[in-house]
């Protein structure tokens, strides 16, 4: 078996950010939300999207992005001309959800997006202070 490619999961723990406004709201028992940002391989998008939908996630933002981490771009030479690929094409998914769902969502993305090879991507979890639905003015979880 290959050594597992580490997928970094950055979860901001509430006790570390005790000054955080979102956290204070939290303590008063007001709803808390997180944003999950996942950078994944393009061909894994469908699986991850389907998985999240099945989990009950109602909406997501998907962006075609380019970048590099430990997986670098490469160079091709054709008829003497060089074609350099500096950045590797990836897909970024952004989903805001009730923080209770976050562990499940992380597990799901990790399961669906994993190939075991380099470049599988990363998942970031970010606290969200507020969500407002523009049309109705609803806020908080209702607005997700």
């Amino acid at each position: 078996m290959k050594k597992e490619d580490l997928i970094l999961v950055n979860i901001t723990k509430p006790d570390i950010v005790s000054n955080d406004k979102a956290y204070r709201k939290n303590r008063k028992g007001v709803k808390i939300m997180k944003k999950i940002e996942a950078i994944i391989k393009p061909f894994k998008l469908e699986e991850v999207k389907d998985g999240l939908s099945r989990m009950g996630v109602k909406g997501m933002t998907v962006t075609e992005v380019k970048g590099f981490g430990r997986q670098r771009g490469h160079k091709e030479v054709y008829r003497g001309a060089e074609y350099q690929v500096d950045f590797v094409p990836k897909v970024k998914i952004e989903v805001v959800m009730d923080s209770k769902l976050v562990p499940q969502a992380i597990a799901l993305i990790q399961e669906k997006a994993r190939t075991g090879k380099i470049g599988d991507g990363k998942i970031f979890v970010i606290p969200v202070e507020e969500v407002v639905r523009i049309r109705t003015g609803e806020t908080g979880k209702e607005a997700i």
Partner: protein
Amino acid sequence: MEYPAEQLKTSRQQLITLFTTGLNVKSFPEENTALIDQYFQDSLQESLVGRALHQQGIPYAFVAMGGYGRRELCLHSDIDIILLFGKKVPLQAKTLMQEILFPLWDLGLDLGYGTRTIKDCLSIAKIDFEVLTSLLDARFIDGEYPLYLDLIEKLYKKVLSKKSHALRLWLIEKDKKRLDTFGDSSYLLEPNLKEGIGGLRDYHHMLWLAKASVGPRETHDQAFRARLSYQEYQDLRQHVSFLLNIRNHLHLLSHRRNDRLTFEYQAEIAQRLGLRDQKKSLAAEQFNSLVHATMAALKSLSRSFTAGLFLTTKKGRNIKQIRQISQGLTVDKGELGFDAARAILKNPSLLIAIFEYSARLGYPLSLEARRLVREFLYLVDDSFRQSKTIVGSFETILTQSSHTFETLSQMIDVGFLDSFIPEFGRIRNRVEFDAYHIFPVGIHSLYTVKYLKELSGADHELLHDLFVEISHPERLLWAGLFHDIGKSKGNHAHSGAAITNTILKRFGYDKDGIQDICFLVRYHLLLAETATRRDLNDEKVIVQCARIIGSVELLKMLYLLTWADSRATGPKAWNDWIANLIRDLVFKILHILERGELATRDASRKVEHIKSEVRKHIVPGTQENDLEASFERMPSRYLLNTSPQEIVRHLGMAIRLKAMMQARETQLEGNAGEDIFIFETRKDKVGNCWEITIVAKDRPGLFANIAGVLALNTINILSADIYTWRDGTAVDVLRTANPLDDLFVKEKWAKVQEELANVLTGSLSLESSIGNKETHRHSAGFKKLLRVPDVVVDNESSDFFTIIEVYSNDHVLLLYRITHALFDLGLDIHSARIATKVDQVVDVFYVRDLEGQKIEDDERVKEIKRTLLKQLKHL
């Protein structure tokens, strides 16, 4: 004043109800106009101010302007009127206006109004052409008719006669602005019915130009008839009425004046028009096709109408310069025409010849020539469509000219392309109901050809190079024209290839050409789909693509077609991001094809044969799907180099392994199954040596352990094939060099198995056991040096693996030393081929690091060489 307004309200409501329920759909704008007219007439009858004015002898007239004047009032259209007076606007005018107009506002109608004298009207019309055109639509409603006539007479005499040329220029300028605003791709699928290209505005422009070119007393029907054939005029009326009808539906649904046919309303309006979803196309798609066809036709009519007008004016001033360019064809002021209509009858090939010249010279067909082509389309019959010369001319247009796009567009405009290739007619106006495709299929195909042709210019370096290199660009262009021709069928690439085949056979096209073109049509989505949906770091994916494509030439064409097709689809289908993915894929396929190991035609045939043999061996019905899935898991090299019988055997071993692993998991005790492996041995019939097959879950160092245990038992490995399936199953087949003692052979294998299990769980240390062994061997003093050991690290030959080749003298410990060193270096052996010739060993390892990457860092490569060479020298 209540009564007329009440009446209007009721009758208007009735009209809307009728419209909503699908009755009187066609005549809504006219009936709506009539209702408003009626209101004005009724109100004036009762108006006190109106009567007073009459008694004072002050003439006045209510005049409808703009859309109201043209009787084109949709549900929420503006109602523009002017209250016209002779010389002076009397004081009562304001009261009269209020009296008549306020109730309309109360009904929620949108009104635009003005109170003017004839002189006012004329002086504004001279400087503001918006007002002028609006006055051209003027229509008398009520009041003093002579006053209205006076206005119109003067408008023609004093304004139009002097300004008609300026008006034309102004309209051309307006058209340009419209093209800038509404020619934008986003409007192609969500057209603006009024201002959009081919919208009602085009009709209005024709109308104004027609009016400006005739006298005031002629009806605009007469004006049109001078320039349009009977059929063209009928078509025009039909298109306008269709667009007005849709526009009215749009107003009704969006509850406001709205001319943009956005997605949200398309499906609903389609339903209301009685279109229903069908297998081949959604109602909304059929609807879009209709709208597009109508707008395209209107655009075409308006263009030729306008061009015709300008031609006549120029003709008057210039001397005739008709020049004959070939038998039956002429050029007149940069436009192509026929000598005489009779010439076409005698020689139907003139119908394509005129396009050939148009493509070569870049001149458009004259209005008259277009009309003639249309009239004579019946000459395009089966024998015309099969004629080699005609097809040759068409191919010349497709390939040789730099005006291909314009010429093909003209062919579509006049219906020639539909007649010549009826299959194309079926998809021409088809619109895909999504935000992805911005053009209907016909135009999209033309753009694909256009982009391909532009490649011979230099903008896109790589694509340009590839285009120049391909030996049959005409095949690529045909494929560009036909790639979506199967769009009305389910799998459009698949059925498109069949349709293309039919067309090209009819053309009498050569066999190789047909094969290539059909291939390109059939697989035009392959690259884009693979690049976005499959793992490009999986060699098997690339090899499968390479096998489908089969040759570098076809790969190049397919890449170019993919690029042009995506670009012609719209900005969402082609961007830097996807371009990178596809280019990456293409290079990888190219490398596989160029190396010719895995994807030659022979290789593909052999693999298919092996697969079908394996299928025969498996009990039918039991595990067909499993078997296909297993094929997917097997690496390309394995499938190519392993016999069907062996594959069947390995599959059986893999199933047993899986069962054992599962059993261990459920027991929930001991280790996770590191010591589980399937071990089989058998005696080679020919060589009197043994073959060992080990199937186990792959892990780094597995092969080093196997080699080590065998070395420990002094079993020399002559050759070996090592594979890792995609699901992480390692299949290692080793052949021993030396015959074993037949008496104790069972015991020997049992010992090997036991030791291997111990090594795998860690209870036996290979290093120390082998250390003992080595001293033992050394004391035997048996050593001969035949060649200098060598290590080659090759990163060029594969996009997926670093290939390490080891040349050395044979030694019982050799394989263990090398593989152990590779393990220590953090390399994972994906597959390997071990071979021995006499005493010479050639080992080839396909390796990656533990993250699945090739080892490309120079320092690392040097370290690998150094380490391996050190091991070899120690033996």
